[in-house]
């Protein structure tokens, strides 16, 4: 935990320093997590008056439910699309921004500011732009013969959600890629320029492998983003419509638990998600541990 050769001697002081964090974690993290675990074995009547122990019934229901399966598959598909597209676009932009000499800082500012836009704000902005009555994009698509209707068409809703999620995520990836590119030493770049004449070959044989750790790290960040942070986006843009076609796992936890008041089922979903994220992060942690050397 600590690599310091010298430390302060043992006393009550460290506990004083760590206590606020531990207290907050106990009350607002451990307690709800345990509660989720407990509630996942319970069946609660919709008014919250009584609870009954039902064992694994909530879980069994989940695993047999075709609705949950399609939510699960949608989440995977959506996350992969968002990660893939936003990584690709950001990489192109970062490579170009790194290549140009003039206006580099202007480009950097103009390409990163979207980072600070809230997902919910991105959602409502897209809602307006694709709106049937006032949206310019709706008109544009219609003139191309596409009657865009995300309220009733699952394909349209999914496309819209992915587009806005990518819009929101490109800036984050751009910053990391640019930092990674600028971290490549001049000597390496000069040697590369001598060895390979073609710029694209130079990119794929030398630059891209050097960016691989950044790309892997970003992949994890992007998946986490698509899993959790897009809640505000979905709630403002599609609300899972049509018929749950754009519901992600996290959005469903909220829908079933808070709107549908089925605490047991929602808690079981929380536990499933926790297990999922735990295994994903275990993987990530091993990677990061390997990567960080001082």
């Amino acid at each position, binding site marked *: *935990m*600590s690599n*310091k050769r010298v*430390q*302060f001697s043992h006393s009550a002081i460290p*506990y004083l*320093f*760590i206590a*606020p*964090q*531990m207290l*907050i*974690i106990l*009350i*607002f*993290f451990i307690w*709800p*997590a345990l509660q*989720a675990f407990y*509630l996942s074995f319970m069946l609660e009547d919709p008014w919250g008056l009584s609870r009954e122990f039902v064992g694994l019934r909530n879980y069994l229901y989940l695993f047999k439910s075709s609705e949950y399966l399609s939510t699960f598959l949608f989440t995977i598909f959506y996350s992969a699309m968002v990660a893939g597209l936003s990584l690709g*676009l950001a990489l192109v932009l970062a490579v*170009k921004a790194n*290549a*140009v000499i*003039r*206006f580099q800082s202007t*480009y*950097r500012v*103009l*390409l*990163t500011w979207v980072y*600070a*836009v*809230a997902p*919910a*704000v991105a959602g*409502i*902005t897209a809602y*307006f*732009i694709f709106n049937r009555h006032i949206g310019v994009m709706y008109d544009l698509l219609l003139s191309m013969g596409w009657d865009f209707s995300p309220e009733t068409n699952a394909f349209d809703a999914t496309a819209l959600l992915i587009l806005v999620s990518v819009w929101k995520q*490109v*800036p*984050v990836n751009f*910053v*990391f890629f640019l*930092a990674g590119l600028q971290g490549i030493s001049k000597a390496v770049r000069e040697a590369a320029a001598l060895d390979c004449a073609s710029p694209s070959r130079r990119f794929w044989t030398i630059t891209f492998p050097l960016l691989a750790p950044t790309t892997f790290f970003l992949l994890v960040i992007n998946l986490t983003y698509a899993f*959790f942070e897009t*809640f*505000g986006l979905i*709630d403002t843009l599609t609300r899972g419509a049509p018929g749950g076609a754009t519901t992600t796992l*996290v959005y469903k936890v*909220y829908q079933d638990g808070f709107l549908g008041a089925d605490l047991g089922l929602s*808690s079981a979903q*929380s536990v499933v*998600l*926790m297990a999922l994220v*735990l295994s994903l*992060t275990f993987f990530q942690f091993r990677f*990061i541990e390997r990567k*960080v050397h001082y």
Partner: protein
Amino acid sequence: MNRSHWLDHTILWVGILFLLTPVWLLIASSTHSTQTILQEGLQFLPGSEGFAAYKTALTKATGFTDTATGYRMLLNSTIMGLGFAIGKILISMMAAYALVYFRIPFAGFLFWIIFSTLLLPLEVRIVPSYDVVSQLGLLNSYTGLIVPLIASATATFYFQQFYKTIPNELLEAAQLDNAGPFRFFFDILVPLSRTMIAAMFIIMFVVGWNQYLWPIMMTTEESYYTIIMGIKNILSVIRESRVPDFNVAFALVVLSLVPPVAVVIIFQRWFIQGLVESEK
């Protein structure tokens, strides 16, 4: 400028237009009348109404109790952003200090408890968290809005990594000078962490300001509404098939994104440093 440079700049500008256009449409349209927007759709060029819609958005009370004006919501968002950023930085710096600079029994255990919070965002345990906060009587309060969000230890991780890079000699020198743990923390470690604090502050302020799910669950009293939640109200008006004052709605959306975007642009250098540092 040769031909390939010209292509590079073109690609960059296409990317910038992709990112900029949606927000520009809202800004331009907010200076038109609702009439114009209804008849002609969103506008690419600024209109004749100027910033009138912004004045309305800031002062007009919405909702049932007429307490949620734009000003009020901006104030709440500011409290939320500042409270979240400051609270998180304070407890994280302290906890990281205890972990790095002291030999405590069960340090490994404490470390894992703290870092398990990185794995499970609030969204996953949202319903039981709501339950706990309501049992503690913290619904509709700034404490309930801010403190549960602080439970995730992202910043602790960064500060711990940062402290590890500080040379050992510093503590040795401080101990020779008879500086105790408090002196060392406040007089040496805190000033050394300035850039790190700045970077964390920018990122955390943006995260706090942009919160959506937790505030909508936590608050039923309109005096606690944040500006990001105000957006939900605009949408519910539209979804009930009523026509909102589109220009005022756009103004509210623009107002909600100006502070975090301004913070990121103005403190660009620290922001990028923070993002890249946090990669570790």
